[in-house]
């Protein structure tokens, strides 16, 4: 029985990794072994994550060298409130997606590969949240990227392969930029550990260059406007469970890294105008993504562009932190709420696509009326994206606006509120089709119960998050990055 939080966390990496290896080695295309392995290992991963979260809650942040070798010689793992929350987010969304995938992939040729890749991705993300040094982070980042690209290409087809190729190039370029930054840092300071770097950091030009490389690389992976062009095709053309994972979790992994770096390592390096630039890019993402979501003709494209828009909020962190130091907690909670809501929306879109055989919005009305449960889930999650009450999105919006107003930054407060209205416009544009008097139902395939119910369950998690604000903030306050 693991006793410290780190033991639990290490298991949270090891369990899905073993699952991935087993699924990859043992399962033949079309066999039932993959799904079984996937769900069992997914469940155990979620349990270990729960153990880790409880341990952090009880004992506070922990860090330790792997195999007893601490820094500077060994590799450090660290687990604090932020990591724990990210692990938990991955586990909740991951579990729902796993159950969903059981139904979605039944009888599909993809399923053998899907389970191996998905568990692999899960392990890599967990490892990323636990790594305490910049080089390890590079390795996990690369693993996450490769697994995500492979998942994108899973459905075959020209569109998927093209999108995956583009994603691969961006991902590699991003990692490369990040790696150059790491090299510069190692050259300058001779350490890779986050905490040690944070202590030693001098505001000189080499460090600034390193920070710039790393940040730009990560921005590419996080698809911040104007580096977002790869995201919509990749997320819209992937199979539904993959879209959900990509939009909800994978972009959050690289964002987590940006947050971690600027929170624990680089705060000394900011130059005037930097925060404003990041905030402006975030605002650009918010506006441009929303406009495209309003114009998109296909449901999954609407959702993908909505991701571009909502990622913009994350980068309001920089200008907000400049006026209210605690603002990053609001942003993390926003990421949490967005992950749950966006995964739900993608899963619901997958249900509708399965039922109708297409996702052209204009012809979706009749199917939407025939699938009220999925539409309902879409509605709840959509309300969270808009920031309407009793959902996580509302709490997130409240926290963001509060941080802005506390710091007297009214412009950002109005931006957050206006972004909510834009989200309202595209969410209700979709929902409006469910009420229209469109043509009769032409084709309607029944959606498997596993898919419908897992979507609804994840939608209800958004509501639970509406009541989890205080607890999440308490967990985030257990911040162990600072030495």
């Amino acid at each position, binding site marked *: 029985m693991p006793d410290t939080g780190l033991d639990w966390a290490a298991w949270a990496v090891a369990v899905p990794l073993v699952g991935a290896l087993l699924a990859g080695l043992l399962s033949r295309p079309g066999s039932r072994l993959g799904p079984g392995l996937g769900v069992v290992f997914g469940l155990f991963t979620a349990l270990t994550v729960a153990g880790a979260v409880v341990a952090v809650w009880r004992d506070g942040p922990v860090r330790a060298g792997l195999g007893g070798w601490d820094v500077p010689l060994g590799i450090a793992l660290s687990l604090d409130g932020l990591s724990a929350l990210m692990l938990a987010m991955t586990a909740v969304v991951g579990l729902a997606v796993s159950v969903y995938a059981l139904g979605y992939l039944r009888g599909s040729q993809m399923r053998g590969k899907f389970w191996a890749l998905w568990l692999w991705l899960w392990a890599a993300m967990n490892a990323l949240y636990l790594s305490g040094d910049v080089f390890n982070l590079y390795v996990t980042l690369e693993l996450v990227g490769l697994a995500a690209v492979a998942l994108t290409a899973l459905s075959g087809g020209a569109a998927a392969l093209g999108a995956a190729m583009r994603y691969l190039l961006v991902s590699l370029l991003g990692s490369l930029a990040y790696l150059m930054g790491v090299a510069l840092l190692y050259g300058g300071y001779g350490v890779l550990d986050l905490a040690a770097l944070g202590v030693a950091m001098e505001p000189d030009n080499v460090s600034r260059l390193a920070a710039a490389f790393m940040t730009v690389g990560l921005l590419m992976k996080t698809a911040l406007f104007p580096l977002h062009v790869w995201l919509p095709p990749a997320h819209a053309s992937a199979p539904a469970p993959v879209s959900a994972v990509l939009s909800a979790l994978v972009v959050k992994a690289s964002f987590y890294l940006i947050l971690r770096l600027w929170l624990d390592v680089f705060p000394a390096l900011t130059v005037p105008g930097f925060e404003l630039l990041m905030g402006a890019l975030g605002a650009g993402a918010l506006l441009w993504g929303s406009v495209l979501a309003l114009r998109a003709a296909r449901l999954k494209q609407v959702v993908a562009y909505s991701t571009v828009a909502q990622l913009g909020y994350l980068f309001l962190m920089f200008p907000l932190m400049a006026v209210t130091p605690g603002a990053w907690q609001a942003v993390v909670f926003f990421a949490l709420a967005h992950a749950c809501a966006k995964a739900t929306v993608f899963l619901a879109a997958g249900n509708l696509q399965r039922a109708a055989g297409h996702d052209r919005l204009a012809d979706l009305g009749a199917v939407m*009326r025939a699938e*009220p449960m999925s539409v*309902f889930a879409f*509605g709840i999650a959509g*309300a969270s994206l*808009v920031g*309407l*009450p*009793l959902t996580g999105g*509302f*709490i997130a*919006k*409240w*926290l963001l*606006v*509060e941080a802005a*107003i*506390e710091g007297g930054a009214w412009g950002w*407060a*109005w931006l957050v*509120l*206006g972004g*909510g*209205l834009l989200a*309202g*416009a595209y969410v*209700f544009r979709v929902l*409006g089709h469910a*009420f*229209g*008097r469109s043509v009769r139902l032409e084709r309607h395939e029944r959606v498997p119960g596993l898919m419908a119910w897992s979507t609804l369950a994840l939608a209800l998690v958004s509501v639970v998050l*509406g*009541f989890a*604000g*205080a607890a999440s*903030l308490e967990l985030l306050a257990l911040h162990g990055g600072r030495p």
Partner: protein
Amino acid sequence: MNSSWLLVFILLSSLVPGVIIFFLREESHSLRTAFNLGGAGLKLILVGTLLLGVQRGEVYELRAVLLPGMELVLAADALSLLFASLSSVLWFVTTIYAVGYLEGSPNRSRFFGFFSLCVSATVGIAFSGNLITFLIFYEILTLATWPLVVHRGTAQSLRAGRLYLGYTLAGGALLLAAMVWLTVLAGSGDFKPGGYLMGLQQEFAPQLKLIFALLVAGFGVKAALVPLHSWLPRAMVAPAPVSALLHAVAVVKAGAFGIVRVVNDVYGTTLTIDLGLALPLMALAVITIVYGSVRALFADDLKRRLAFSTVSQVSYIVLGVALAGPLGAVGGLVHLVHQGLMKITLFFCAGNFAETLHIHKVSELNGVGRRMPLTMLAFTLGALGMIGTPPLAGFISKWYLGLGALQVEQHWVLVALVFSGLLNAAYFLPPVIRGWFGRRDEPWYETHLEHTRFETHWMLLGPTLFAAATVVVVGVLAGMPFSPLDWVSLIVEREYAPPEVGP
């Protein structure tokens, strides 16, 4: 068990049936009706219990922490009960009406599901113990009413729905900004008679004024204050029971109720006057009253005329609180109830005319009194009440509003009231006169309702007559205990002479 859980049960009494109804098949008509009426009846009983409890002076309050410094508070004070009783009585009546109205039309499970959610949200608004809780239920109300507005699914109703959402979500955003700001300045206080912002005005006067403006704008969207009213006449495309509920209790009243809460229980009347906010609010209300009446005068479509009349009449409530004197407050608050009763009567009548005889316009009403005498009688009572004829409900409200204006020496308000009363007569009397004394030459449109025993389906007629009867009863018996007027006087006493409590 703690008796405060009664509040939660009241919320659940419509929420749970609503959720169950979503899952019912379209054909299970009687089961759905049973859940609807069962929930509505249970809610009436529970609210009645609560009413007795509050009158005995018992305190009902439940709290849950959402964020540090942000609490969800459910509480029952006299003012919340005024609103809660109104909505639960009218919900019961409207449910019966809606069952009759929608008989045989598609998507009824969806309709009644959202209908129940809508009422849960309204009751939640009534029991909100602080601004944040109020906002939460207020936004849920927006969400729950939108499907009702677009229920018919025509291009026109979808457009109306978009307009409605655009206005209300923007209003919600303003409210959120105002509430966050207020929380940053003053923390999150509970509603309490006399307000909780005393002492802040020396330091933060400009901020408080701006926040007040934001709050009034945010609530004003739903209360349809000019110039934020234009969604309301468009939303008339919704089915008649929805319009009735929207106008009488749910949406429009929620906005007005919000303004009442802000003036009475957040800022307090003293601070509102000190900051110089009462007069602008009064002016806004008067402009809306006159403007709505003028527009109603020129509307030929019956529901549209009623909609503009709502714009006008709801502002009487705002005017009442803005007068910031006890008598004015009595007038405004009692109008919250009276306007609801009168307006729901009128909308039921309009729905009856439209469903039975396909009459939608005032100019088509000629001679309808001979074909549907009972409905026309109800319409007449509602219209006379709106005009302010003694001893009907509307007279009581206007009497106290007038006294209130004299009490705070705003004579121009009295002039405006008289003028608006004349306008009311000018747009409500023509349909009444046409109905009773007009002559129709071509035959009536005969419909599927022809075979009924009465002039129209009994589920449409019954609620209409009941509502019309209340218009008379609350007017005639205004002096009796537990009449709206009596209850409102209790609220106002507590507001203007708060019980002495140590610091």
